[in-house]
């Protein structure tokens, strides 16, 4: 009995001494590296989300969903931000780690403003290809959020000659056509865009005095997703975005060190307890 007790004490002190050397275990943790690009053109003002506690505007909803994603990606993941308008994607932030830089990422995301748009037209294919080039340069997967609504309507898209990419093309908005609010520079509602507001020579729409309606153009977005290798889904809830972004096959692995001291401490504790009680 004495020998056993003595042995347990020796083991206990062995664990304590081992813990003093700060041993760690290297684990491969799944992390993600995304470039998130948000469409900031006029049609993103359309209000067709109806979820309690979340904004109804497409742009604001997309931003709220992205914020959830930033908060819910595992530590070590990195997120870059960009905006899309006209034919181009502009990078705002190079990828930053989500836990340490969450406040900055969230501020930058909230600062995304439709007034930063430098033109009112949008050519989604060009913007998407531009974003794909940027993502490739940053070695990140792309998350491109747009409602697919394109003005002026173009009969065909440019060809895609890049490498097939990984990531998501996220459709923002609903299937039912809704009017697009027309805002002044302070963000106050002036009315709704009318077909007659469009300049005469560019649109292919019949000229009638009626509201310009916008809906999520899924067909076009699916097509673009197909030719670029991205996957398409329609944004319904922030949780669904988080779930899709955390899909294991999009993860990269990051070696992380797991601290072994708590376990050594606990082993020492139970060994000592056993030595005292037997």
């Amino acid at each position, binding site marked *: *009995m*004495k020998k056993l*007790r*003595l042995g347990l*004490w*020796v083991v*206990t*002190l062995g664990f*304590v*001494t081992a*813990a*003093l050397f*700060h041993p760690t275990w290297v684990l491969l943790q799944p992390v993600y590296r995304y470039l998130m690009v948000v469409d900031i053109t006029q049609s993103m003002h359309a209000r067709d989300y109806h979820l309690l506690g979340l904004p109804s505007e497409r742009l604001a909803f997309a931003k709220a969903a992205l914020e959830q994603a930033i908060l819910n990606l595992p530590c070590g993941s990195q997120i*870059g931000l*960009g*905006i899309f308008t006209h034919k*181009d994607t*502009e*990078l*705002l*932030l*190079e*990828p*930053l780690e989500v836990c*340490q*830089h969450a*406040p*900055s*990422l969230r*501020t*930058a995301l909230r*600062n*995304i*403003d439709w*007034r*930063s*748009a*430098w*033109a009112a037209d949008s050519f989604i294919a060009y913007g998407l290809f531009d974003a794909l080039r*940027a993502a490739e*340069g940053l070695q990140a997967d792309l998350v491109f959020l747009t409602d697919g609504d394109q003005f002026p309507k173009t009969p065909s898209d440019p060809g895609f000659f890049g490498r097939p990419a990984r990531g998501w093309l996220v459709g923002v908005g609903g299937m039912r056509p809704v009017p697009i609010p027309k805002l002044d520079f302070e963000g106050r509602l002036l009315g709704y865009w009318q077909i007659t507001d469009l300049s005469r020579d560019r649109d292919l729409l019949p000229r009638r005095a009626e509201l310009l309606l916008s809906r999520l153009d899924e067909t076009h977005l699916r097509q673009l997703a197909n030719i670029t290798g991205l996957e398409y889904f329609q944004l319904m809830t922030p949780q669904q975005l988080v779930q899709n972004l955390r899909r294991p096959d999009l993860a990269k692995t990051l070696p992380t060190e797991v*601290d072994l*001291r*708590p*376990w*050594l*401490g*606990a082993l*020492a*504790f139970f060994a*000592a*307890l056993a*030595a*005292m*009680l037997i």
Partner: protein
Amino acid sequence: MPEIGFAHPLWLFLLPLATLPYLPFARRQLPYPALAVLTGIASTTWPEKLHKACSCAFLSCLIVSASCPFVKEQKVARLGQGAHIVLTIDHSSSMNENFSGRYFGGSAHETKSAAARRLLIEFIRRRPKDLFGVVAFSTAPRQVLPLTADKEAIIAAVGALGMRGRGLTNIAPGLAMALETFRGQPLTGSRVILLVSDGGARIDPDVQDRLRQDFQDLAVNLYWVYLRNPSGVSVLNPPKRRLSETSAPEIFLHQYFQTLGVPYRVFEAENPQSLAQAIATVETLENRPLPYFETLPRRDLSPYGFGLALILGVPLLSWAALEIERWLA
């Protein structure tokens, strides 16, 4: 007062188990033939009390160390030299050219935008105490980050400007947005707008008045780093010919900036070297007292815990070694 945190607080639920040495069933029972021979009750003698206290302390020590306590990172107010700087950076398409005005020079010259980006990042790294904000502008401005101490985020924002620029150099909205960054912030140090652009643009008279008012109200100093093409007009040595606002907007912009009523300097940079020099000058200019917060990193306490446990454990081990199970006469 430093705050203590635990990296793995769940282990602390084991803490009640540390009282086990005091509970009756932890007492060892020895068959002993003649109690009358014993002089005292073993559990009340001082070595026994000390042993119990030691065991209890040892167990508690182990659990607390296993939960990895640390002193939380602290922010300490210090007074240093520095400034609040909003980097207002031109990201128009002309910034893609190199300093000789060509897109791709014969020799590997970097573009104006890349040179500015590289030097600004070095500048940010050298100024740990300053708060930085980033506003980028071309045709339309965008505020990427308000004033923040998160240097890595600022560097990521400046780094993002390495992508191809687009659009025109539209200075007024960019300046207005940079000024907005200071509004409502406490005036705790010198405020600087560091405008990096490769050209000017005409500003409407009424916008000029509004900007001047804001510069004065918010007490913001302006430094303009003008990245000049060799063929472009020089602001410091204007040509003698008659100038118009369309052919040489930079000169008119310079004249307007001089009427702002706040400290203003212009730096002309014709190559990366003079750009570096201009940034170095700004650095020496803006060194006024500035209260700032230094973040002390978190300090791990568990090595101390395990060390204490070891110190307590060695006597306990020797105690166990001294135990006599049976008298052997």
